[in-house]
């Protein structure tokens, strides 16, 4: 017996884009299976929704800047998605967070104005839609900030963060506290679990309160709870009698894990299936369509058959796009055509490490509705799309959410058209 399962839609990838697309499809009553090699980028990213941070100068009003980008760069994913759908998708996302498993937790902001948030090293980072627990960090407001760190949380250096903020012209200082007396080190995740405990949190607040000066805001690493971040954050603000905010840490990212849990819960609530640990290892294509994919499983692979697919497997970072030693760029998941490579004869890489690499815009070639070239029933979303340089533009989650949303729209309208015919 060959292992085979049928769904209305199969989504490849469980990062933000895949989970958004899968959830949106499942919400319409479609049977959906999200298939992923492993957990995606959510656990590594800061958990903010950066729509457009640099273009190339720092962006104040992301809505307006995206409009200009769309006009100037027709090959950019945003140009295919459109400003209206981007706004719609962000509102949809914010609703899912508000209705999600984390009571009271919400995202604030939108396309009107970027927040200006400090990073763990004290750089400033523009972001459009952010967890409420980070919004208080906005550096454009006048209050001085006190960054709180601990030796036990490696990779978060409060003094460095405060010093760099100071150099950028913001009033900032740092204090060190022992989060946990009985341990030499702890991960951000371990600390987040501690913060979920009310008694532990009260003791922490009592330890921190005397170190603070009047009128200061408090910046903590993003460890304010996993199961009830809204409760943890509000409780700390109340106990300390001042604004408290989170600063994203190096991975693991607690706000990113929350985002994953919100989207996972939304998918499951609508009956979507999530299969982790199953890499797509084969694809059946016929007549310009994808018929089925093979998901690697223990013992034997499983054939997932569907009329519609979403490819949200990521880009170079996830291994879904590869430049092999033969100097040919490939989509390693479905073998679809790619676009965005530098023209022949042009350099693919430049020597400056931190500058934009010519190869960075490569992705799976799509039409104006995000359908893959050569496979009309495959919609592409997220970092798999060509034309963007998310780490430089600060546009990763904005593209992920809006393209995941748009990919679902495309498949839904195609399915509706098919049903009508």
């Amino acid at each position: 017996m060959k292992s085979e399962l049928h769904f209305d839609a199969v989504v490849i990838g469980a990062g933000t884009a895949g989970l958004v697309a899968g959830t949106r499809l499942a919400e319409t009553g479609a049977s959906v299976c999200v298939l992923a090699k492993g957990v995606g980028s959510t656990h590594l990213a800061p958990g903010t929704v950066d729509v457009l941070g640099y273009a190339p100068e720092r962006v104040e009003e992301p809505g307006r800047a995206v409009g200009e980008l769309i006009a100037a760069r027709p090959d950019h994913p945003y140009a295919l998605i459109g400003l209206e759908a981007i706004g719609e998708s962000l509102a949809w996302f914010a609703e899912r967070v508000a209705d999600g498993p984390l009571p009271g937790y919400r995202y604030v902001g939108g396309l009107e104005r970027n927040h200006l948030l400090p990073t763990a090293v004290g750089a400033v980072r523009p972001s459009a839609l952010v967890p409420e627990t980070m919004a208080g960090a906005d550096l454009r407001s006048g209050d001085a900030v006190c960054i709180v760190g601990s030796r036990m949380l490696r990779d978060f250096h409060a003094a460095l963060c405060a010093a760099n903020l100071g150099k950028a012209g913001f009033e900032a200082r740092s204090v060190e506290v022992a989060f946990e007396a009985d341990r030499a080190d702890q991960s951000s995740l371990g600390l987040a679990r501690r913060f979920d405990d009310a008694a532990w949190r009260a003791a922490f607040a009592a330890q921190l309160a005397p170190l603070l000066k009047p009128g200061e805001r408090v910046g903590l690493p993003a460890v304010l709870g996993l199961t009830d971040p809204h409760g943890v954050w509000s409780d700390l603000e109340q106990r300390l009698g001042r604004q408290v905010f989170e600063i994203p840490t190096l991975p693991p990212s607690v706000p990113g894990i929350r985002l994953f849990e919100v989207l996972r819960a939304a998918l499951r609530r609508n009956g979507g299936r999530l299969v982790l640990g199953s890499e797509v290892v084969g694809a059946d294509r016929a007549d310009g369509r994808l018929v089925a994919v093979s998901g690697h499983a223990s013992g034997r692979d499983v054939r997932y058959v569907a009329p519609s697919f979403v490819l949200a497997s990521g880009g170079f970072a996830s291994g879904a796009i590869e430049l092999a030693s033969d100097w040919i760029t490939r989509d390693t998941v479905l073998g679809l055509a790619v676009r965005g490579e530098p023209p022949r004869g042009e350099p693919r890489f430049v020597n400056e490490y931190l500058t934009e690499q010519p190869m960075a815009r490569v992705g799976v070639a799509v039409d104006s509705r995000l359908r893959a070239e050569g496979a009309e029933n495959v919609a592409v979303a997220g970092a798999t799309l060509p034309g963007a340089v998310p780490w430089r533009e600060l546009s990763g989650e904005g593209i992920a959410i809006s393209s995941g949303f748009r990919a679902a729209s495309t498949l839904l309208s195609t399915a509706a058209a098919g049903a009508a015919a």
Partner: protein
Amino acid sequence: MSADVDILQNLLRAEELRGSLDHCVKCTICETQCPVSNVTPLFPGPKYAGPQAERYRVFDEPTDESSVDYCSGCGICTQVCPQGVKIAEINAQARNKIKRRHGVPLRDRIITRPTWLGRLGTPVAPLANLSLRLRPFRILAEKVLKVHRDAPAPAFAGRRFSRWAHKRTSPKTGRKIVYFHGCGTEYYEPWEGEKVVAILEHNGFEVVVPKQDCCGLPLQSSGLFDDARKVVLRLARALAQHVHDDDTIIVGNATSCTVMLKREAREILALEHDPDLKLVSERVYDICELLVELHDRGELKTDFKPIEEHIAYHAPCQQQGHWVGKPALDLFALIPGLQVDEMTARCCGIAGTYGLKLEKYAISMDVGRSLFDQIDASGAAEVACDSETCRWQITHGTKRKSVHPIDYLHRAYGLDG
């Protein structure tokens, strides 16, 4: 010649498994999911003990790094790794190296032998069960054997499933299916096997129950690889005799044992070359996985009567190691009236024999805490779970009855009375 090629291929595959560590980008996703390192500093986490420490485990040279013994072998790290690093498998092999160097405690030689224990305990079940519940006996067992006095100990059923199965004949429908029942069903919960048989026969299968034994998973997870190989290959030979063609299905209800046959024995014990094991592993199904696939093909009977109950469902780590999602939930959705809360906490903590061990019992209970709390919060009266040792741990941790998902199908089919 072909034997040499097989050995060479086997070596290559083993090297491929170890070589997967080069794909580790230190993203820490495994660390966020590891049930053990999230509750104890004794295990520094899958990334540290796996891809990082492995670089220092050169051939059989000595290493002071022994924290990997605290890995419970649940396999979640491998499941969630976005880069395809075989973290749990690398760690299992590292545990074996520690055991080879430092020796194997007597306890690990005993509790990893469900067949010996079952054969000893079954004829004297009332006495054995009484002893397992007597405090002085458990304290003695803790002192002598280092098995924690409070660890969940299942009761011997006093009868063996295979005796029941071999006394009866499955109706001859011509559609044969091979049933691998495992040791839990054989010695502790024979009624689960009877339900599996009833459900399969209800769906038109002729159930064949070969003479069989342990799959070797307890030995493997305690690092006793040589013994585990002997045991699993003996089982593979026994099952392979019943494989006639590509359509032969071998089905099991012990989800950790079916994943052992499917993949872990081949990868962790480096038995990729064994033809019988290969033949078997490609045909093994977990019962819920099989029933969902039958349903997809329109071949599952759906004459389910309503069950107006509210239950919690925990997918055990080993079930997740099949990499097919959570088929039990799809089956529950077919039963009218059944309200199911999916638990999202990762692990119950027991990990087979891990939580029985004196030095690991407290860790296993700490691991299980978030699941126990979630079950309590759900308000569900019963907990469905695909693995027997996990069910015993869940009952131990929540004082709730815990049964295999197929129990609800059995009832909904009206096969229970």
